[in-house]
Every structure is written in structure tokens, then in C-alpha cells.
């Protein structure tokens, strides 16, 4: 039964790809059915009705045993439930959002492929299986970002995402190989990692594996692809680049925590990467005008929080925040998508204004999501962010203060986009004629808004499900600091943007995203071109001229010289042969 998790979306993707690409209605039906089946299966697993199936041996060699199996522990079950639930809602939402797109048959097929790969990552029992689905997720993300491939920017964004992910995945692969070489197995078993304990390789393996997370979860310095990935359809941004795929990196860190915990050095690098990403992304988010980009940077920032939590050994906190963030960030993206749908893909918040009055349902649900993300007490984000701050306060005080500041920034930029986009006077004609989105798009918003409210409360039981909080004292400083931060952020946002009709302050550093793209362009242009020129010179002159042609020249010269001997004269041959024979005689019998 549990295999349905993988088989349903896979066969849906296959069916759509083979037969139904040109039949949007049929592929919608197939894809949504598949995601519903997946969700119900995940529900059955979470309620304990469905057991984990026996593993199938895929590769069974001396020294390497790779199984295709299913890990269905609490971690996986929670993640499964969140992923399949959000995925199902987004499938439904896409019905409305993509209703007019002629290529939506392909879209639903790719969604199914993504769902299957994501589930593969979650249930993987070993590194190899995880790596396979990890790459599949990368591929489907590439396909979905580039869904509107006739737009150059979309095609470029897809390539950028793929390449950035490749860089991270290469490190991940090296990490897997090193782990296998040291421990002799690829399975996720804490006992298996015993060979690494105290080994100098432990931090290296940990950091190499972390590379995969840096790529997939858009941590600095490989984060550049995530904002560009917003070129994809909004449901894709909601599903892949907010709720699930980018969270896969964090999930992977939790899954392999048994390796990471062997090395405090690796953990602190991870914590710092997360903390810096959270802060930098939040700073950038405060100055972006594209509503989806703000959300994208916000996603990066929240992922930074989760990575920070893992780095502080708070896997439960990380998973808790991952889950609640999955709900409210999907909600925010779908709310934004609903606005874009109504405004004919106008993405600049300064060209909106007053949308709230035209689209009350979208406004209310988006507001709930924004409040949850900002960490306003009583909503899901408050509880999970609190957990992370607690963990950080316990082990990395500096990072705690950075994270608290980031929380203030979060509240600030969420206030900013809510105020600018939804309140005030309509600034363009498009807004004046906007209408509320259809019910298929509204329903998922309502469901997710409900989850964004309740998911954090203890009675909802996410933390209990994960096996309780990390041990340690909760200081009172943390809620105080985070509350202060949230209030400060809200107030600052309200003062700055309450009546603004254009940007009151401009900070180029943040607008230009800390110049990461420029730096990378420069690196590519200068360093890479120069080194390529050097290599080309070496290839042309050292390898091509000296080695290849030089070798050929020496051989042909030798041939020319030897040709003088080989004139074809029989008698010469006989003479030389006789000399050789005589010489041999002396050699053999010479006394």
C-alpha cells in the first residue's frame, strides 16, 4: 500500500507524458487524482493504518548494498503529510490559476513528477536512493521554472537554478562517496556512522553533505537561483520554491543529523551559514518591489532560520518551522498568485494598492499568512520561530541576536507589502477592474489559512509528534526579544509605508541584492575567461604543438631516417640478417 505514495504520482506523470499532454482536462483529472491518492496514503501512514513495506534490494554487491525502501518514522510521516497536503491543495489551486494556459497538460504532468521525486527524498532509506530523487527533484524544478520556456527570462532562470543546484549536488555526491568509503555503507543508520566518530573526515563529510542543502535550500552563496525561479508559474513557486523542494535541504539535514552531530565544527558552519542567509535575505526583501521576489527572499530567510536551527542541534525546531512555514508560505504565494491572476500578471507592488477591497478573501487569507510569517503571537509562525530562537539562544548567542533582528525585518517587510499592495488607493486601472479569483483558488487559501493559524499550537501536536522539544531551559529573554522585534518591525513598517505611494527610502545595496549576481557575472567574465584563455593557450601550444605535433614530428623523422635502411634491397636484408645471426652465435657461444 505504501508504495502508492511513489507509484501514483509516477504513473500519473508517465501517463500524462506518454498520452495526455495534449488533453488538458484528462491530465488535470489524472494528476489531481494521483495527488489525492498520495495524500490519503500519507494520511493512512500518519494514522498508523499503513505499514512500511519491506525494502527491495536494488544493488547488492560486496561492500555496496543499495535498497529501494521506505523510512516511515515520525520525521518522514510529518514531512509526507505536509508535502502531500500542500501539493494536493496546490494541484486544486492550479486548476483555476492555469485555466487559460494551453500547455497545462504538460504542467500537471510535471507537477506529478515533482511530487513523486519529493516523496522519494522523504522516504529514502539510504544516501543513494535519496540522491536519485534529489536529482529528479532538481530536474522537475528545472522543467517547472522553465515552463514558459518561450520567455527568455524563464529559460535563463531555469538554467540558473539547475546549475546552482548542480554545484551543490556535486558536493553532496562527494559527501556521499566519502561517507560510503569511510563507513562502508550508504544506509541511514546511526550505527553506520560510527566509523566517522572522532575521524578527521567527519567535518568534511558533514560539510560536503551540507553542500547539497546549500544548493537546494538556497543558502548563501548558492542562493542566487531562488529569486529568479519566480519566473515559473505561481503555483510552482508556492509548491516547489516555498513549501517543499527548498525545504528538502533542511529535511535532508535532519535526516542525516546522525552524521552532522559527529562534528561540532560542521554544525557551527551550518549554523552561521543559516544565520547569515536569514539576515541577508531579509535585508534584501525589504527593498524589493516585485511581490513574488519579496516572498522568495522571505523564503530564503526562513530557510536560513531552519538551517540555523539544525546547526544548533535543534532538528525538532527546524522541522517544526519547516512545517508551519510550508503552510503559511504556500498560502502567501497562492495569495500573491491570486492577486497576479486578477491583475493580469502585474507583479510590482507599487502598481497595485487597494487590492484588499476588490479581493476580500485573498486579502484576509494573505493577511493571516503575513501575520503568521511575521511571528505575531497566536499564529503558527510565532510558535515555531520561538522554538528556533530558543535553540539558538542556548548554543549561539551571537546568532540569536542576528535571528532576532531578522525577525524584526521579517515583520517589517511583510507589513510593507501588505500595506502597499492591499491597502490605500488603487494606483492603476488594472486594479480598479480586478475581481476576486474563482472558488477553486479560494478554497485552498482558506484551508491553508486555517492551518497557518492552528498548526503552531501544542494541541495540533507537531512538536509532540516529532518526539518533543529539545531538552534545555527556555529563557524568558527569547519571547521578550522576539516580541519586541516583531512590534518594532510592525511599527516601523506601518510608519514607513502607511500612506506611502512610492518608496520612501532607497538602499541600493539591498535593491541590488548585495550585488551577488554582479559578483558572479564578474567572476565568470574575468576569472573564467582568463583561465579559459590560459587553458586554451596551454592546449594549443603545449599539448597541441609540443606534445601532439612534436611527437608526430619525432616519429616521422625517425621514420625518414629508418627508411634509408629499408630500401627494399633483398641483399642488404640478407647481409644485416647474417650479421645478426653471427652476432647471436657469439653471444650464445662466445667464450
Amino acid at each position, binding site marked *: 500500500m505504501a508504495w502508492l505514495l511513489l507509484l501514483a504520482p509516477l504513473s500519473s506523470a508517465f501517463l500524462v507524458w506518454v498520452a495526455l499532454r495534449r488533453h488538458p482536462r484528462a491530465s488535470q483529472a489524472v494528476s489531481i487524482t494521483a495527488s489525492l491518492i498520495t495524500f490519503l496514503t500519507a494520511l493512512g501512514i500518519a494514522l498508523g493504518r499503513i505499514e512500511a513495506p519491506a525494502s527491495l534490494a536494488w544493488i547488492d554487491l560486496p561492500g555496496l548494498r543499495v535498497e529501494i525502501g521506505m523510512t516511515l518514522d515520525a520525521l518522514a510521516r510529518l514531512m509526507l503529510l505536509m508535502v502531500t497536503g500542500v501539493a494536493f491543495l496546490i494541484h486544486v489551486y492550479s486548476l483555476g490559476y492555469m485555466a487559460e494556459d494551453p500547455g497545462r497538460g504538460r504542467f500537471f504532468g510535471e507537477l506529478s513528477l515533482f511530487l513523486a521525486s519529493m516523496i522519494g527524498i522523504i522516504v529514502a532509506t539510504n544516501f543513494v536512493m535519496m540522491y536519485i530523487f534529489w536529482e529528479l527533484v532538481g530536474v522537475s524544478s528545472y522543467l517547472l521554472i522553465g515552463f514558459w520556456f518561450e520567455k527568455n527570462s524563464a529559460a535563463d532562470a531555469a538554467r540558473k537554478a539547475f546549475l546552482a543546484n548542480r554545484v551543490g549536488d556535486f558536493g553532496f555526491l562527494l559527501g556521499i562517496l566519502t561517507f560510503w568509503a569511510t563507513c562502508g555503507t550508504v544506509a541511514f543508520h546511526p550505527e553506520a556512522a560510527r566509523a566517522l566518530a572522532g575521524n578527521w573526515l567527519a567535518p568534511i563529510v558533514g560539510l560536503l553533505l551540507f553542500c547539497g542543502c546549500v544548493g537546494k535550500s538556497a543558502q548563501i552563496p548558492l542562493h542566487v537561483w531562488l529569486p529568479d525561479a519566480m519566473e515559473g508559474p505561481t503555483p510552482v513557486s508556492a509548491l516547489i520554491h516555498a513549501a517543499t523542494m527548498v525545504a528538502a535541504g533542511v529535511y535532508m539535514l535532519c535526516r542525516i543529523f546522525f552524521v552532522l552531530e559527529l562534528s561540532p565544527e560542521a554544525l557551527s558552519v551550518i549554523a552561521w551559514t543559516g544565520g547569515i542567509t536569514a539576515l541577508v535575505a531579509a535585508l534584501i526583501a525589504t527593498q524589493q518591489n516585485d511581490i513574488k521576489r519579496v516572498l522568495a527572499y522571505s523564503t530564503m530567510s526562513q530557510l536560513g532560520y531552519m538551517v540555523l536551527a539544525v546547526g544548533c542541534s535543534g532538528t525538532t525546531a527546524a522541522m517544526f518551522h519547516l512545517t508551519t512555514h510550508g503552510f503559511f508560505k504556500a498560502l502567501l504565494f497562492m495569495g500573491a498568485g491570486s492577486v497576479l491572476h486578477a491583475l493580469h500578471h502585474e507583479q510590482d507592488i507599487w502598481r497595485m494598492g487597494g487590492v484588499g477591497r476588490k479581493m476580500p478573501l485573498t486579502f484576509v487569507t494573505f493577511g493571516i499568512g503575513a501575520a503568521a510569517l511575521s511571528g505575531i503571537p497566536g499564529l503558527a509562525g510565532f510558535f515555531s520561530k520561538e522554538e528556533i530562537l530558543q535553540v539558538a539562544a542556548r548554543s549561539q548567542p551571537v546568532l540569536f541576536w542576528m535571528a532576532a533582528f531578522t525577525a524584526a525585518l521579517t515583520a517589517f517587510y511583510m507589513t510593507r507589502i501588505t500595506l502597499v499592495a492591499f491597502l490605500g488607493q488603487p494606483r492603476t486601472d488594472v486594479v480598479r477592474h480586478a475581481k476576486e479569483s474563482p472558488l477553486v483558488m479560494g478554497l485552498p487559501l482558506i484551508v491553508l489559512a486555517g492551518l497557518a493559524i492552528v498548526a503552531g499550537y501544542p494541541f495540533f501536536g507537531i512538536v509532540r509528534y516529532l518526539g518533543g522539544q529539545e531538552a534545555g531551559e527556555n529563557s524568558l529573554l527569547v519571547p521578550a526579544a522576539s516580541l519586541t522585534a516583531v512590534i518594532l518591525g510592525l511599527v516601523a513598517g506601518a510608519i514607513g509605508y502607511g500612506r506611502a505611494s512610492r518608496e520612501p527610502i532607497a538602499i541600493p545595496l539591498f535593491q541590488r541584492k548585495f550585488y551577488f549576481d554582479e559578483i558572479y557575472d564578474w567572476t565568470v567574465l574575468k576569472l573564467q575567461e582568463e583561465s579559459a584563455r590560459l587553458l586554451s593557450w596551454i592546449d594549443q601550444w603545449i599539448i597541441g604543438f609540443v606534445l601532439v605535433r612534436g611527437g608526430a614530428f619525432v616519429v616521422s623523422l625517425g621514420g625518414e631516417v629508418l627508411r634509408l635502411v629499408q*630500401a627494399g*634491397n*633483398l*641483399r642488404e636484408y*640478407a647481409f644485416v640478417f*647474417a650479421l645478426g645471426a653471427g652476432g647471436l652465435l657469439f653471444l650464445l657461444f662466445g667464450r
Partner: protein
Amino acid sequence: MGTPTLGHYLVLSGLLFAIGLAGVIARRDLLIMYMCLEIMLNAANLSLVAFSRFTQQVRGEVFVFFVITVAAVEVAVGLALLVSLYRMKRTTKAEEITALKF
């Protein structure tokens, strides 16, 4: 002049072989070179027979028998080649036949 020993026969055989080889090197006509080749084969035969005689084994003579047969074959085929070469090049000079392909 005492009874000849194995050594005498071997020296004789070696000299005969050397003369044959010298002929192959010195002469320019393929036909004469063939004759010299025959001399060399015969020199080898002589040493085989001598060994056979002085070690009291008939086997050596059997080998000589085979050598004679093979030499006959070689002469037949070689001379046929020579004739067809001559037809093509109007010569049997070794110097003038320096290519494997015409």
C-alpha cells in the same frame, strides 16, 4: 689423415653454409641466390646427418628427409614466382625488385 670426427663434419657444414650465405649477399640474380639458398639448406642437412650418425639416432635423418621435401616445394614455388616476376619486369635482378606492389 685420421678418421673424421663430428667436429670435422660440423666445420665443413659451417663453411658450406657461410659460402651459401655469401652467395646470397654477393650475387644479384635471384636465380643464383636461389641456388645459394639450396647450398645453405644442404649445409644444414649435412650437420643433421652428422649428428644423427655420431649420436646413433635415425631421427636426424628423418628431419633431413623433411628438409629435402620442403626444399623441393620451395624451389618449385620460388621458381614459379620468379618466372611470373620475369614476365612482368623482364628482369631477375634483386636490386630492381624493391617494391612489394607494382
